[in-house]
């Protein structure tokens, strides 16, 4: 953490981080009630990446997320009530109840929609960046994806195109070492990932610390270059998924990974660490505020109506 971190910034980061953690814990708590009939992929444990990246973006910058996209959506300022309603399948949801947890979108907050087909959004984010460049803005796009997504051919195709056209896009690989239950050793020939990406002429950074401030600093530095038109950049950020791949629970009893893998990550969890940097009163106020907002989102979702039957036929064509 560098000296640039004023108390205001730390408070802002904590606000976002705490909110996301608690919001997802609430989703997990609601899940057994069957009110959320949507596959949910929690980002619990990985939120620091979204918070760090999005805090270094402007509000007119865009973010492209994945089906594990709660954190990116919320960190970028996506509406939590609309998100909760979306998971409940309500007409007030961010996608009017048609997308669920895997297709979050908030155009006002410049959150591009997510996809349930792994990797698909990467070139789409690049296309968005191409448009921003053609429109002669200095806006940028941050494209989140997992280590598994990086195995899809379209990822490499996109890297080449983005570098060739010097697109203002920051690729953010959330490397949590697993795709569903398959460890990287069964999927990657080597882990020379950043080195490979760099051969496209793309500036890369690898962050293994789990440190939110490092994520934010790195993003800020790279985004500066993006705004100057110097071409794309990539961050590979190590993290760990604390819960099961899909669904609300832990799954260390399933045998495919030991709980000991997670423990170092839990030990350096950014939520308490950043909490500790704040004056107690401020921390408490932030947390209380978050709880209120989350409660409001749940109430909003619960009380919103389901879409009417004729909604089925709306929006097939624009």
């Amino acid at each position, binding site marked *: 953490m560098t000296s640039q971190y004023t108390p205001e910034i730390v408070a802002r980061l904590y606000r976002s981080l705490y909110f996301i953690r608690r919001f997802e814990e609430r989703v997990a708590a609601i899940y057994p009630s*069957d009110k959320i*009939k*949507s*596959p*949910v992929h929690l980002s619990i444990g990985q939120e620091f990446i979204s918070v760090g990246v999005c805090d270094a973006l402007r509000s007119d910058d865009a973010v492209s997320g994945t089906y594990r996209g709660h954190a990116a959506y919320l960190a970028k300022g996506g509406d939590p009530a609309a998100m909760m309603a979306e998971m409940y*399948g*309500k007409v007030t*949801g961010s996608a009017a*109840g*048609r*997308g*669920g*947890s*895997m*297709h979050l979108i908030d155009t006002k907050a410049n959150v591009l929609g997510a*996809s*349930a*087909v*792994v*990797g698909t959004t990467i070139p789409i984010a690049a296309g968005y960046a191409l448009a921003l460049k053609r429109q002669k803005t200095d806006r940028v796009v941050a494209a989140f994806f997992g280590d*598994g*997504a990086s*195995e*899809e*051919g379209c990822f490499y195709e996109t890297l080449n195109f983005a570098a060739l056209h010097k697109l203002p896009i920051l690729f953010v690989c959330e490397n949590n070492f697993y*795709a*569903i*239950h*398959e460890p990287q050793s*069964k*999927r*990657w020939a080597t882990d020379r990932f950043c080195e490979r990406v760099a051969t496209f002429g793309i500036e890369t950074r690898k962050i293994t610390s789990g440190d939110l401030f490092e994520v934010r600093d790195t993003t800020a530095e790279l985004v500066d270059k993006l705004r100057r038109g110097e071409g794309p950049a990539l961050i590979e950020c190590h993290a760990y998924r604390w819960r099961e791949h*899909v*669904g609300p629970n832990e799954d260390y009893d*399933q*045998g*495919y990974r030991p709980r000991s893998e997670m423990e170092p990550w839990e030990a350096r969890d950014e939520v308490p660490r950043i909490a500790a940097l704040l004056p107690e009163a401020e921390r408490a106020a932030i947390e209380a505020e978050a709880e209120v907002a989350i409660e409001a989102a749940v109430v909003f979702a619960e009380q919103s109506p*389901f*879409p009417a*039957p004729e*909604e*089925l*036929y709306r929006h*097939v064509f624009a």
Partner: protein
Amino acid sequence: MSSPNAATRQLRYVDALAEAVSQEMARDDSVFVFGLDVDDHKSIQGSTRGLLDRFGPERIFTTPLSEDAMTGVAIGAAMAGMRPIHVHIRMDFLLLCMNQIVNMAAKAHYMYGGAVKVPMVVRSMIGKSWGQGAQHSQGLHSMFMHVPGLKVVAPSNAYDAKGCMMAAIRDDNPVIFMEHRLLYSTEAPVPEDPYTVEFGRARRMLEGDNITVVGVSNMAVECLRAAELLREVDVSVDLIDPISLVPLDIDTIAQSVARTRKLLVVDNSWTSCGASAEIASQVTERLGGSGPLQVRRMGFAPTTCPTTPALEQLFYPNPSTIAEAAYAMARPNGASWRPDPEHAKLAYQAQFKGPF
């Protein structure tokens, strides 16, 4: 269809799949299974359970997320004399494999003048309910039916699942094997011994006189329930499960329609250029000239699949809407009728719970 003498017992669809593959792997060293997650503890909802222990990681292994190239790998291995089974947990992901499947697998035998064969099986599952939504719910069989050189099968019960899987593995052509998530837990009597269900032979599930109903994949099951409801109002259904879509046993269907002059095709996908369009067209080409013929297709609503249950339930045909449509065709001059929706529910619909 061979008729094995061995004892039968109730088996779930998902276990029938695993048993078929296991027996074929034991019989033939050249068979192997690969695809994302085939070797993990969930083993594709159990459909590959036990294979890793029995056959080891050379013969069943996961892959990187690289569906396009992995399909090419299957084709190449098949050309070299192996018999790959490439597994996808959702049919939607086959859209990543279209180039290899359509441009290579379907065409290689023909385009190379018979010099090579491509004996491979592409397993994929259609998802439904619990917010599967736009990209985890598609039945894309008609895209494969469109292209010469591919076989397409869609078993609707555990017996056919095992028999079709064995036939698919033994087939010297690429076979698109379409499964349905909601069928996995359904049980049927399944012989223990190996047997094949021959492609190109439809199964008449019910005999009836008032209307011919064709149900594809799990829609065969929904149609069966619809037929039960219709029996209560004295409409008797000739119900046909095509089992295999390519080759398609149009004779059995057309013979039935020649009698009933009424055809309702219920598919597990959109109707536009769908399997239902093909079946309807072939029947019409044969029988349309000889007198009035009532034809109707049902399938997904002509929309993207929404996640919210409020709309999702309207997106699919169900026993109630099927029965209602069939009744209207069978009794064109009667008042319209629709069964009590509660009564119309299928057992598995009540059981199934997410997230997947």
